[in-house]
């Protein structure tokens, strides 16, 4: 048992073992394994020099619950009434928050100063199973239900001589210290250069490798290097810095590439010089000019910081960012999602000076179906396991940080079974004024201190940035997994907020992809240089090489820039708040990024080359329209049956079992939550969050995502998703921007592209040209929509390699774009929810319905795609939205729900059960469209609204021919839909609600 002492926690026999029961139930429902009774226990292995009595007393007082628990100290539970057991420990180096918290408890209990920053107490869980299970079943339970082999160590035990016993595994990190720096020869053949890039996970292509080689051939650079004691060859640290800085993840090389585009459908050819500059920045530049023309000056900072910044109120800025964390979530769903959300929280926190107060989280998730039954490829996790892990990661990441998850969306498609998409968004507020200076700027001068605050550095997350820039395969590096610690981050973020309030921080940024290499490398562009001393960086355990310290993506760290005379006060505050703060270097103006270890240089790179030396990529795009046709469906459809099926289908059904696991109202400011109405069943369009307790000003948040439309038309998919995000905000009572001078109605978009590998290669990616063409079309739609609606893109992200390759098979995601939008709400009390409010109200559909069932949820019930994808008519849409705004200004609309997946029928049903009311309508006003189209077409820019009967005239005058009267809200809870007097649907609301509620149970 070496030097470890143990404390094992058992529930008293009269206490219900909720965790054990949950495991038994999951084994049964997900794996079809009958485990019998399951008992859960916890084990702590303590590696401090303590007496047996001290550990006994610590266990009794600080670990054991006096009412529910019993403990065993230095003795392991060896039950006789169970047949087998699985112990789940962490692998070496994996964050063990529970162990760390126990360490803090020990320090408090004994009132002694012990090292709590490195791991001395290790926690693990042990489950005992009543039934005899074979090795294969135990393996399956361990890997699918209890843990993940990438981060967990499993110990299996079966009954021997009447009892179960085993030695506990302790994940002590044991590495020999190796702080050598290696020089790497780049005078190699092309083939060897590519091989080097691959074996070192540099993710650089041949042209980029050659550009690096040429830098080291340059005589001017050599002189400078030898002055600093470096040879003419690059060090491992330099190559790693270049690889991180030039990674697709950080440099967006494909969005900055030259694309030769040919549209075979129209005959058009063009050369696009950077999708980003042409369409995204191009759109924003045009929008800003249009806003300025109208004296709307709320855009403050776009693209150049961790998050976009707009002016929210007279003295507050709104800062927000949405990004993806797909690759890490594919490998370790819980860890990937939690680091995704925590990492994204650090973006607003590290924008401008820093210290924004976080207001909300939002997340959009794309998964394979939970019932996926294809054989799993090597390294591929089951979609259900990915979904459950990601959801718990978001739950812990948001809940434990005290940031409400105010809305989101979940999309299912088999093509997300390899790589899920995990979009995390966070909005925050910061004061406009920072002690007399602009808070959104990042001033840095020669001599300013480089400080790191928060968590320590380990091997976790090394190569995250480069790894996410290539497709996942069965050889993906284990060290790419990052493990989040919400409590560490909460302490760091509390510290940042107070430090900024006190004016102690000059500016800051977060440590995400690329670690210190990226955060310091980018900040150093402001002063034009930096010197970093890596031996000062606090480590989780010894044994890291200098380059590993510099590029590690260990989480929960902020890089702070401070003036030297503020350091003492800042350090005192950090000590008080128990946040580790370390001085690791100085900013300079030498034009060089210098990295030292024990006073010897391990890297010296020219700032200009580092940031601007990457060669521009060239890509090919060719568009050919797919051959598609509309299906012929039976003419005698049973619409009661179809509507029930549709309500329960994966992309329409209730997300309640996910939503309720997220705290969506901490901070007490959430006004429109994901589920509203008398029973909390009404799904909403946009979320509304109040800015403070002293005003009713608020912010609306929405998400538009429609990947399946892209199978027919990528332009319309992108334009449609844009419209979806806009109309959700209009539906809840928002107003379009720039319709009046100086109205202060800000809008801000985060665009997030997630596409399969779109770089053509005849062997490995033969359809790359079409994928690239889709990307161009998505960008064209973005430009057209943003400039038409005058909505700026303030920040965004592109994730370009969403492919999962193993065993010779490739699973690629469909080209996906998410538009996340936020906008100012003048008075949250005037916002509108989706559920019907009272019987007798009149029901209308606003906006024109077309025969557009292509890629609809209705067609997918029949396994059909169709051809008539919904088209966006942006001019018509804008006119309608202005009318809706006018109606809302007069308080004429009682409920409003935008029409999306499932079309009109589904929207009517949701508004009815949401308000615990019924609805009686006739679709005659929609004219001579086919009945299927009237019911289920997903035509854009439409709403189902209800109004008070006494407002009929005023409402109809305002909305004109865009309002189609359908019928009334009824007290009887029945959904009755007719078409020209003929019965179509007649169902109890309760039956529809049940079908909707039972479609997805987590």
């Amino acid at each position: 048992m070496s030097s470890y002492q143990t404390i094992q926690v058992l529930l008293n026999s009269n206490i219900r073992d909720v965790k054990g029961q949950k495991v038994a139930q999951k084994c049964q429902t997900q794996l079809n394994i009958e485990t019998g009774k399951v008992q859960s226990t916890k084990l702590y292995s303590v590696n401090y020099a303590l007496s047996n009595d001290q550990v006994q007393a610590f266990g009794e007082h600080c670990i054991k619950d006096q009412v529910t628990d019993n403990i065993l100290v230095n003795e392991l539970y060896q039950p006789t009434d169970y047949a087998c057991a699985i112990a789940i420990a962490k692998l070496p180096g994996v964050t063990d928050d529970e162990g760390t918290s126990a360490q803090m408890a020990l320090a408090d209990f004994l009132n002694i100063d012990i090292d709590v920053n490195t791991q001395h107490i290790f926690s693990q869980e042990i489950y005992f199973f009543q039934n005899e299970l074979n090795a294969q079943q135990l393996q399956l339970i361990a890997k699918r239900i209890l843990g993940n082999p990438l981060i967990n160590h499993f110990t299996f035990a079966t009954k021997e001589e009447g009892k179960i016993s085993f030695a506990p595994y302790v994940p002590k990190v044991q590495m020999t210290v190796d702080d050598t720096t290696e020089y790497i020869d780049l005078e190699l053949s092309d083939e060897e250069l590519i091989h080097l890039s691959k074996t070192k996970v540099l993710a650089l292509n041949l042209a980029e490798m050659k550009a690096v080689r040429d830098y080291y051939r340059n005589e001017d650079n050599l002189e400078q290097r030898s002055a600093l004691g470096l040879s003419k060859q690059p060090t491992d640290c330099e190559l790693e810095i270049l690889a991180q800085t030039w990674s697709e993840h950080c440099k967006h090389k494909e969005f900055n590439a030259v694309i030769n585009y040919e549209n075979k459908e129209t005959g058009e050819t063009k050369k696009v010089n950077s999708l980003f500059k042409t369409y995204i920045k191009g759109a924003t530049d045009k929008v800003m000019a249009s806003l300025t023309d109208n004296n709307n000056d709320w855009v403050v900072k776009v693209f150049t910081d961790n998050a976009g910044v707009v002016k929210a109120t007279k003295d507050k800025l709104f800062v927000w960012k949405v990004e993806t964390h797909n690759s890490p979530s594919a490998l370790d769903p819980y860890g990937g999602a939690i680091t995704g959300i925590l990492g994204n929280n650090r973006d607003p926190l590290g924008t401008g000076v820093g210290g924004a107060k976080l207001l909300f989280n939002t997340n959009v998730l794309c998964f394979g179906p939970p019932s996926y039954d294809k054989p799993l490829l090597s390294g591929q996790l089951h979609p259900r396991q990915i979904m459950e892990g990601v959801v718990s990661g978001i739950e812990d990441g948001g809940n434990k940080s005290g940031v409400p998850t105010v809305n989101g969306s979940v999309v299912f498609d088999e093509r997300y079974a390899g790589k899920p998409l995990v979009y995390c968004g966070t909005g925050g507020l910061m004061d406009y004024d920072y002690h007399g200076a602009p808070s959104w700027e990042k001033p840095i001068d020669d001599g300013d201190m480089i400080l790191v605050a928060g968590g320590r550095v380990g091997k976790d997350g090394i190569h995250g940035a480069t790894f996410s820039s290539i497709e996942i395969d069965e050889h993906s590096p284990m060290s790419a997994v990052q493990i989040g610690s919400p409590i560490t981050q909460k302490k760091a973020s509390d510290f940042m907020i107070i430090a900024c309030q006190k004016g102690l921080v000059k500016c800051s940024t977060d440590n995400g992809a690329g670690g210190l290499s990226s955060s310091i490398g980018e900040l150093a562009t402001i002063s034009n240089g930096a010197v970093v001393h890596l031996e000062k960086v606090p480590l989780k355990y010894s044994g890291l090489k200098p380059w590993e310290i510099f590029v590690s993506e260990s989480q929960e760290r902020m890089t702070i820039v401070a003036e030297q005379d503020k350091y003492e006060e800042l350090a005192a505050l950090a000590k008080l708040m128990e946040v580790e703060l370390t001085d690791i270097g100085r900013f300079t103006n030498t034009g060089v990024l210098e990295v030292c270890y024990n006073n010897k240089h391990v890297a010296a790179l020219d700032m200009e080359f580092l940031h601007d030396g990457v060669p521009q990529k060239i890509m090919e795009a060719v568009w050919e329209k797919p051959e598609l046709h509309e299906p012929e469906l039976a003419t005698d459809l049973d619409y009661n049956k179809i509507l029930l099926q549709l309500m329960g289908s994966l992309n329409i059904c209730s997300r309640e079992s996910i939503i309720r696991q997220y705290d969506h109202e901490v901070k007490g400011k959430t006004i429109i939550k994901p589920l509203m109405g008398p029973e909390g069943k009404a799904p909403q369009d946009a979320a509304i969050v109040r800015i403070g307790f002293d005003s009713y000003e608020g912010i609306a948040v929405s998400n538009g995502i429609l990947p399946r439309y892209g199978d027919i038309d990528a332009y319309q998919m992108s334009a449609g998703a844009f419209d979806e995000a806009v109309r959700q905000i209009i539906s809840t009572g928002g107003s379009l921007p720039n319709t009046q001078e100086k109205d202060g109605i800000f809008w801000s978009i985060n665009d997030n592209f997630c596409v399969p590998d779109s770089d053509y290669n005849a062997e490995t990616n033969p359809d790359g040209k079409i994928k690239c063409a889709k990307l161009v079309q998505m960008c064209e739609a973005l430009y057209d929509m943003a400039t038409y609606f005058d909505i700026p893109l303030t920040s965004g992200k592109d994730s370009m390699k969403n492919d999962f390759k193993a065993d010779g098979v490739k699973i690629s995601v469909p080209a996906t774009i998410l538009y996340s939008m936020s906008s100012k709400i003048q008075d949250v009390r005037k916002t509108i929810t989706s559920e019907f409010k009272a019987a007798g109200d009149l029901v209308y559909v606003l906006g024109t319905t077309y025969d557009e069932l292509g890629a609809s949820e209705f067609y997918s019930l029949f396994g059909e795609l169709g051809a008539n994808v919904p088209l966006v008519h942006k001019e018509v849409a804008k006119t309608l939205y202005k009318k809706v705004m006018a109606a809302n200004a007069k308080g004429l609309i009682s409920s409003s729900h935008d029409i999306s997946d499932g079309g009109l029928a589904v929207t009517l049903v949701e508004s009815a059960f949401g308000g615990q009311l019924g609805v009686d309508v006739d679709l005659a006003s929609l004219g001579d469209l086919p009945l299927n189209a009237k019911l289920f077409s997903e035509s854009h820019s439409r709403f189902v609204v209800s109004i008070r009967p006494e407002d009929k005239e005023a409402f109809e005058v305002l909305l004109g021919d865009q309002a189609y009267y359908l019928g009334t809200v009824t007290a009887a809870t029945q959904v009755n839909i007719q078409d020209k007097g003929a019965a179509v649907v007649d169902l109890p609301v309760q039956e529809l609600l049940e079908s909707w509620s039972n479609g997805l149970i987590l």
Partner: protein
Amino acid sequence: MVKALVLTGFGINCEEEMAAAYKLAGAHADIVHLNEIFINGFDIHNYDILNFPGGFSFGDDIASGKVMANKIKYKTLPSGQTFIAELKQFIQAGKYVLGVCNGFQMLVRMGLLPNLGEQFEQEVSLSHNNSGRFEDRWVYCKVSEDCKTPFLKGIDVFPLPIRHGEGKLIIKNEELRNTIIEQKLNCLSYCTADGSLTSDYPANPNGSDLDCAGLSDPTGQVFGLMPHPEAFLSLYNHPNWGQIKRKNPSISEDGEGLNIFKNIVAHVAQEKAIEV
């Protein structure tokens, strides 16, 4: 003026809305990091009401509120005594303590609630919800007749959000259970809309014994509850505000959770007036 102290740090995250609640109720409120007390010797005795807000102190590790309770019981302050000793003095001085959600879990684990034995030993526990998961949902709460705490004065049935994974009350033994009932310390219970107590999920969201949502100590000065009154300061926090306002357009724009804070602030103000 009535002064409320709101504690924060180590993962507490509802301190701002708690402070806002006191301000809306007419009191002065300060948010103070716990280490101001533990390291700098900040004096709590200048305040009338001490508040442990919700959140995830130490990430709910070991058990919710456990590590913080441990700190409060055992860590030595600059004064040489423990924080719990200060708390005893605070309560003996006739002052008030409120714990919400994670704050309630702390109070229970450090023995401030229900404290029948007056020994500040843990007598009940708040354990994993029967659903086995964290849940955010709105529930109805019923205030028991003859309840002892001024926090709940004049309130009958009202809705509040719960947001927790460990809220199921478990009482150590039958004798304690009977005493809790006799002394009417189970002052707040989960109920249906009409006010009938219920053990049925989800109206009772966690399977709590006695359908209990909140407890007071025998003096009524210490009160803890799982639901979040500070998250219902405005009518517009309620998930059904749309229909509520439609039915009653002139309804107050205050949320019903605010009443708890108004109650205690008024009560303390009255006590202070008498003292003067």
